[in-house]
């Protein structure tokens, strides 16, 4: 280890052939040497550069981050390097890359090459190309990482959806088999001739109750599959919210009473007399939410609070369903509206049900310009579910100051409609139906209600019977027409009847509960439409609607008949 020996100063010729910018500085920044590459980059020729201060040419170098370290190079003999990532450049040199103008990206080293007089060698390497390439690479990498993350999320979501569907199917299989077992078992019991009449009644009731439950499950599955397929249509018509609420009330109250829960309705502020919405869907949503509230509440009360919220673009009617039930955890509340999910799987075992009701309600309210969500919930205290539906424009709509009065009136009507004895005495009805069991069942129902029934087993026979009755001056009061029949189907028969000037009321009967079917039947010339399975009272009411001398009790507006668990009496 001897004293430090400075290496010889490199020759100008040598410096000129280097593919990097090279200059030699004295300790006061005066340029001693300036190579050809720097001439090319800066457009400052050697003659003007040498003897000039580098600081006067590039004032940015006076910045502390350069100055302090360059000073140390001269005083202590340290080396200094300036990385492209932290500084971008040492000398600002304009370059054009990929069509855009910017500064050359440089990697720079400053080293002392002589102590007396102090001289430092500055070497600047152009790394713009590498920089650009790296930026592109990083951007691409980032993109790939994001794509991968997206893919992973999608896979996870698909997996969890699959899992939910498998759970659902397992659950559903159980849900369907349970009532089915009861139906088949008790039907077999009924065949026993030695049964007493009270046993018979009891078994028949059990079969009916389980049949209704099964129907409810099937309806839910159909609704959801229609929604999922994007085929759920809504029919927004003017309707009275108070009468819908009254109807729902009268249906749900029975359930609440059975569980000894207090059940009430409260209105806040004024309520429009009429709104534009789909009454069937709205009723379904309210029945579902109230039904859930009652199902999951053991003691206390269930309340329905209604108010008009018109502080936003589109006014909505807001329904709060407030229960004193078991409440939900945050996690449960979040998962609740996903299809196939109940708050937890043990709930399904305890309470039964498909877990589809909330999903369906959520989609329905969305179709009706609103939403459903858990507004408030506390474990062990209770929950508030909130449903909203758009009211449509309210200009010129009468506002009810005392909506409760309207509800009570409507409720009385609804109850009267349900409880009034409805019969078909003196009516002559033609039933076109090919299924022997259904012929027997419907004939029985109609005859029991007092009607005289003639059965036709296909469209052609029905048409002939209707026309000859008319020609004899004793037309049928009403024709019930199954739409799927051999020889001539219902569509054809109705079309021909209308063509031949038959004006008898015709009600279509079909097992297809899809909304498009109704339009198809109406287009063929039917006056109305009823779906199978047949609901006795509903069918009778529907018939009376079309018989001119019908008594009161058929005054409720008729929506497409969709069997609902709750309104089968």
């Amino acid at each position: 280890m001897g004293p430090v020996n400075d290496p010889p100063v490199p020759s100008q010729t040598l410096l000129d052939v280097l593919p990097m910018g090279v200059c030699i500085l004295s300790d006061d920044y005066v340029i001693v040497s300036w190579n050809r590459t720097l001439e090319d980059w800066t457009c400052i020729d050697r003659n003007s550069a040498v003897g000039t201060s580098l600081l006067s040419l590039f004032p940015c170098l006076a910045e502390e981050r350069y100055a302090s370290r360059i000073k140390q190079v001269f005083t202590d003999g340290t080396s200094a390097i300036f990385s492209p990532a932290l500084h971008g450049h040492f000398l600002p040199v304009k370059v054009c890359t990929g069509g855009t103008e910017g500064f050359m990206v440089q990697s720079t080293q400053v080293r002392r090459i002589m102590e007396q007089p102090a001289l430092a060698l500055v070497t600047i390497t152009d790394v713009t190309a590498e920089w650009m390439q790296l930026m592109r690479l990083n951007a691409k990498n980032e993109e790939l990482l994001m794509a991968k993350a997206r893919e992973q999320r999608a896979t996870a979501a698909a997996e969890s959806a699959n899992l939910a569907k498998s759970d659902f199917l397992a659950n559903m299989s159980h849900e369907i088999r349970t009532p089915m077992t009861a139906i088949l078992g008790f039907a077999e019991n009924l065949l026993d001739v030695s049964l007493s009449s009270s046993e018979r009644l009891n078994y028949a009731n059990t079969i009916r109750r389980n049949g209704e439950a099964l129907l409810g499950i099937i309806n839910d599955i159909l609704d959801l599959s229609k929604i999922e397929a994007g085929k759920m249509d809504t029919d927004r018509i003017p309707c009275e919210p108070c009468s819908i609420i009254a109807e729902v009330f009268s249906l749900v109250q029975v359930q609440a009473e059975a569980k000894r829960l207090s059940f009430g309705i409260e209105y806040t502020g004024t309520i429009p007399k009429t709104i534009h919405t789909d009454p069937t869907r709205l009723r379904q949503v309210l029945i579902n939410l109230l039904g859930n509230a009652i199902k999951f509440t053991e003691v206390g009360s269930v309340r329905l609070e209604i108010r008009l919220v018109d502080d936003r673009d589109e006014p909505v009617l807001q329904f709060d369903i407030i229960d004193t039930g078991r409440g939900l955890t945050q996690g449960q509340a979040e998962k609740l509206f996903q299809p196939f999910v109940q708050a937890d799987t043990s709930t399904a075992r305890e309470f039964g049900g498909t877990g589809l009701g909330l999903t369906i309600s959520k989609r329905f309210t969305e179709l009706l310009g609103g939403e459903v969500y858990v507004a408030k919930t506390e474990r062990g205290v209770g929950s508030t579910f909130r449903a909203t539906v758009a009211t449509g424009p309210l200009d010129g709509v009468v506002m009810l100051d005392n909506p409760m009065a309207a509800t009570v009136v409507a409720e009385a009507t609804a109850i009267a409609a349900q409880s009034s004895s409805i019969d078909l005495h003196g009516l002559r009805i033609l039933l076109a139906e090919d299924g022997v069991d259904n012929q027997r069942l419907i004939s029985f129902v109609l005859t029991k209600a007092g009607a005289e029934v003639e059965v036709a087993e296909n469209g052609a026979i029905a048409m002939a019977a209707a026309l000859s009755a008319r020609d004899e001056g004793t037309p049928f009061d009403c024709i019930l027409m199954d739409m799927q029949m051999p020889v001539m189907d219902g569509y054809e028969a109705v079309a021909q009847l209308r063509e031949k000037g038959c004006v008898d009321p015709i009600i279509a009967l079909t097992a297809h509960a899809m909304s498009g079917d109704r339009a198809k039947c109406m287009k063929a010339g039917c006056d109305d439409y009823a779906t199978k399975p047949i609901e006795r009272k509903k069918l009778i009411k529907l018939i009376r609607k079309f018989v001119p001398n019908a008594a009161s009790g058929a005054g409720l507006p008729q929506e497409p008949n969709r069997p609902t668990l709750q309104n089968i009496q």
Partner: protein
Amino acid sequence: MRLSQYHEDAIAEAVNIGIGRAASCLSEMVGATVLLNVPSVTFCAYAGACKQVSVAGGGPITSITQAFNGTIAGSAAIVLSEDDAITLAQLLHGDTHTATTLDILQQGILEEVGNIILNGVLGSLSNLMSAKLLYGVPKFKSNANLLLSLSSSGSDHNEHRDVLLANTRFAVAERSVQGSLLIVFDVGSVQVLIDALESLAT
């Protein structure tokens, strides 16, 4: 080589001064407070130092090495695990993208950081002993074979060399990484250092 407590204290102080200077320089440069901290300084034999460092790092090791020459000679290095090296480069660059390898720009950052820190420490040591040093430029090595990267280019036998080992913590904002700072002295250099410290004491 045994150093007295007095020698170790003096050297530790010099290293700390140098590190402090480097920290303020880095802070100024990246526009954020950079804290550098050297809790302990030890001297050990070359082979022992290598063992200590490689155990501390785990995984692949990276290093920034800078040679020095003059009154005393050898090479100085900052040794980091690859993960810590990536983190440090990102901390100083304010970079958040998720990299798993070091690109040339990050290597450039590490070289500059190493340059500043090693200059600070070596400068401080040379001031202490009024020595004159000529400094090389730092070189980044990824997946470095530590023995190789620190071995002297001269004919010295490595096993006879002494190593000053300082554990270092780099912190920027809320985050920090651990590394080691090593100065590998060529044979005889530590004696020169001790002599200089002795003459200071008298």
